[in-house]
């Protein structure tokens, strides 16, 4: 299927998640592209259907009922293109995060060259790198072969050599891959994706395809100082679709009527982050977090580089994976004392048995949001380890995911994001309340103006502009004077002490000039410089000064901790 650009006016974007399937409708209203509505249905990827087709139908049917627009014909097929009477839509794109996390083996030459690049590419795939092999690996060939056999990979990502560069080492690694493939039963052999020295592509293909399917892509590192993650990532998409097509029944079927091949939700969201980072303040990066049920992702954009990072954990079916790495005591620090550590542990493990369940009570919601904070922290920690946070500060930070968008109060969401992400400097926190960021990324391929116009609309919610000063002063010390001058001449002032959260009113759509007077060597931006004033935008929670410090450490004493936490909630109007 080739990607076709459209003069389309109406587009449907399906987002296939582990827990929910969403059908998002975009169309022109008042001469601008707008997000019209979304129909959502529980995913039918698991028993008794084992096919996403049913939930796609249900979500489209809901969308029909919400909009009053006929989208399905009598045989329950999606009407494409739209008809003279307005039935149907002109285009369809699909993103998905419901596939099984894949076991990945990366093979490259040098740790700081091709192996580094291929590991970065692997980070964008929903899965785990279970084995990584380079030319300087000190293990014997047999030990390396055994490691790959034990890893039971779904996919081998293989890079090496600049174009017309290293050849002997690349062929040596290709030979190793072939040896390993031969020792595996044919049904268990992983696919191979080659993105190394292009001069050897044909030879590598000849060697490998005797044993398994191989896809050849452009060189991920064609020159020593040039990395082509985005281009190679696009070439990887069809192969991932083929593998996930076997895991996600119905995906291949819906792909035949799409205007562009389905792609992972994280990769699609990456396109929007790339666009935002190219158009925003060049000194700052852009971050997008998606806390999903089965998997989660963070995309970081800074200048021309974008790093997509997928993680095989989340708040639903991904909870079991998260608990393998989570420290339950750390999750407990975000909870009131009447929820014991034992109850918390039981509730989280119970969630692994019923991943689709929702918080029915305030206590259950508090537990889910506490786990979300730690998931966000874990993602930030991991992306730092991968070297994915290259900017000193990020603005905006976009957050999506069902946990954050299914009706929790804005203040609770904001506090969860601040506790989890702990942003630095001055940033705007934006909530993707309809979970459409990945749909916009997928739509951009066929209708580039659509995402730009929808991003400018009210489809996204500005939660707050947040100032996070850094100070070594003790808690309780005055560290910052704040003056906010509104466009109508009103003024708000506050004196901020270390350890507090302060909210100043600034409604969505309002702008104001923010004057900051740091004290006791308090820093606002990493540079240490403070501008005369900052033009800031309003949000549902207003302008927030988060003077709690970085990293944010909670008191060990439970009583103190709860009092402090309550004071933060009160500050945000909870």
């Amino acid at each position, binding site marked *: 299927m080739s990607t076709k650009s459209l003069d389309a006016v109406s587009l449907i974007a399906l987002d296939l998640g582990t827990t929910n399937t969403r059908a998002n409708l975009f169309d022109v209203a008042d001469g601008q592209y707008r997000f019209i509505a979304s129909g959502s249905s529980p995913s039918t990827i698991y028993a008794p259907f084992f096919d996403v087709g049913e939930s796609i139908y249900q979500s489209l049917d809901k969308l029909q009922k919400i909009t009053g627009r006929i989208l399905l014909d009598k045989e329950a097929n999606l009407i494409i293109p739209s008809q003279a009477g307005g039935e149907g839509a002109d285009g369809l794109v699909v993103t998905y995060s419901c596939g099984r996390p894949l076991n990945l083996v990366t093979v490259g030459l040098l740790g700081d060259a091709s192996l580094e690049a291929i590991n970065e590419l692997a980070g964008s795939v929903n899965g785990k790198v279970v084995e990584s092999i380079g030319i300087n690996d000190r293990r014997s060939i047999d030990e390396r072969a055994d490691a790959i056999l034990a890893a039971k990979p779904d996919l081998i990502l293989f890079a090496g050599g600049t174009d017309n560069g290293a050849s002997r080492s690349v062929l040596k690694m290709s030979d190793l891959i072939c040896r390993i493939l031969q020792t595996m039963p044919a049904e268990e052999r992983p696919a191979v994706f080659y993105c190394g020295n292009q001069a050897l592509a044909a030879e590598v293909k000849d060697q490998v395809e005797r044993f398994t399917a191989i896809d050849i892509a452009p060189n991920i590192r064609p020159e020593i100082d040039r990395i082509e993650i985005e281009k190679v990532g696009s070439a990887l998409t069809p192969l991932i679709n083929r593998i996930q097509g076997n895991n996600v029944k119905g995906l291949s079927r819906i792909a035949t009527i799409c205007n562009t091949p389905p792609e992972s939700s994280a990769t699609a969201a990456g396109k929007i982050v790339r666009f935002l980072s190219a158009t925003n303040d060049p000194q700052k990066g852009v971050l997008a977090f998606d806390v999903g049920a089965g998997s989660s992702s963070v995309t970081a954009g800074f200048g021309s580089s974008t790093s997509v990072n997928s993680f095989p954990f989340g708040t639903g079916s991904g909870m079991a994976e998260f608990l393998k790495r989570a420290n339950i005591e750390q999750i407990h620090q975000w909870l009131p004392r009447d929820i014991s550590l034992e109850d918390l542990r039981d509730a989280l493990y119970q969630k692994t048995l019923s991943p689709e369940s929702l918080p*029915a009570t305030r206590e259950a919601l508090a537990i889910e949001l506490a786990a979300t904070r730690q998931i966000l922290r874990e993602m930030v920690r991991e992306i730092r380890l991968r070297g994915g946070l290259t900017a000193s500060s990020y603005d905006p930070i976009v957050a999506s995911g069902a946990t954050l968008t299914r009706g929790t109060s804005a203040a609770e969401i904001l506090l969860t994001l601040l506790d989890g992400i702990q942003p630095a400097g001055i940033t705007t926190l934006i909530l993707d309340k309809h979970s459409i960021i990945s749909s916009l990324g997928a739509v951009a391929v066929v209708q580039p103006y659509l995402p730009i116009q929808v991003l400018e609309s009210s489809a996204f919610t500005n939660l707050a502009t947040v100032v996070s000063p850094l100070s070594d002063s003790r808690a309780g010390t005055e560290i910052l004077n704040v003056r906010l001058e509104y466009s109508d001449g009103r003024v708000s002032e506050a004196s901020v002490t270390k350890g507090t959260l302060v909210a100043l009113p600034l409604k969505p759509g309002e702008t104001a000039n923010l004057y900051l007077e740091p004290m006791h060597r308090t820093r606002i931006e990493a540079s240490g410089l403070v501008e005369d004033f900052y033009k800031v935008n309003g949000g549902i929670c207003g302008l927030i000064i988060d003077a709690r410090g970085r990293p944010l450490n909670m008191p060990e004493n439970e009583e103190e901790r709860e009092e402090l936490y309550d004071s933060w909630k009160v500050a945000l109007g909870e």
Partner: protein
Amino acid sequence: MQAQVLDIRPIAKFRRSHSLPVPGNVLVRQGQSVSTSDILAEVDIPVSQVTVDIVRALGLSSKQEAEELIQHKVGERLEEKDIIAETGGLFSRVIRTPAPGLILAIQDGCVMIETKTRHVALEARIPGLVVEIQRNRKIVIEGVGTLIQGAWGNDKVGYGPLVNKASEREAALVGDAFAIDVRGSIVLAGTVLDSTILEQAAAAGIAGLIAGSIPSRLIPAAQAQPYPILVTDGFGIMGMNQLAYQLLSTNEGRDAAINATPMNQRKGVRPEVVIPLPVDGQMFDGFCEYQAGQMVHINAYPFAGQTGIIEKVSLSNTLLPSGLRAPAAEVRIDQVKKVIPLANLEVISIETELSAET
């Protein structure tokens, strides 16, 4: 809206399929009766291999020359110190296998020998009849009897007479329950509070344990036990749901099979207890929608393990006590009405079966 279903039925007919990761040796035939621990099929999958480079070892000039000297073919088994290749002549040099194993491949003058395999044996896990065998890989078993699905299992199977050690559905198992009568038995408990109880059960030689709940801190200890442990309702101290307790306790003395397979949504499998019965039951396809009057099981904190009756279903978003909005049902639990999201409810199949009959 498609309901989640928990299959609990006094008389049920059901099919379960098991697959090898790759085709292997099938040890049963269609129509054969099998018990829980019978092996249906098996296969060896390589996990370790050794490569012998004949060119380098014999100092040869070409791969072709090496391959001419290799005395074995792919698929042949090498025993300890078997000769792989020999130059011949008066001062013949030989290369012997560094380890016994199967020759997996001969390529570029190298011989790859499988030295260690992972033996995969497919257990029947439930008693029943083999009704289908596909491509030496997939085997389908049909069982009939009382069926009780659970929530968690430690991935072991067992079979034996049921012994009830729970005076009520929340009762915790105590150490002095393990008298001589429990050896080889499947023990029924409301909950287990201490890992030492699990150790004592192992020492007493029980054939399996069915508990309503266990605290999640006991998961590692439960996984380490040599006998199967099936938890019907989940983690905590809430005990067993009323229906499962009633069915199990009234079947005390009958033989029961525990398939304590971990729950796997992708494969659609759950741990389950089967009490084989010499009667015919009905198949249930798992499809049903939420309706008023259904008996439901709650699967999430803080009401996990409780059962109730749906009084009203609201498919549109309803305000929950948590402040969230979601499709929900009004459920009567012990005469108290609670608003529970549909996502937290499993319809108990016994009800769908009864309503189908009426």
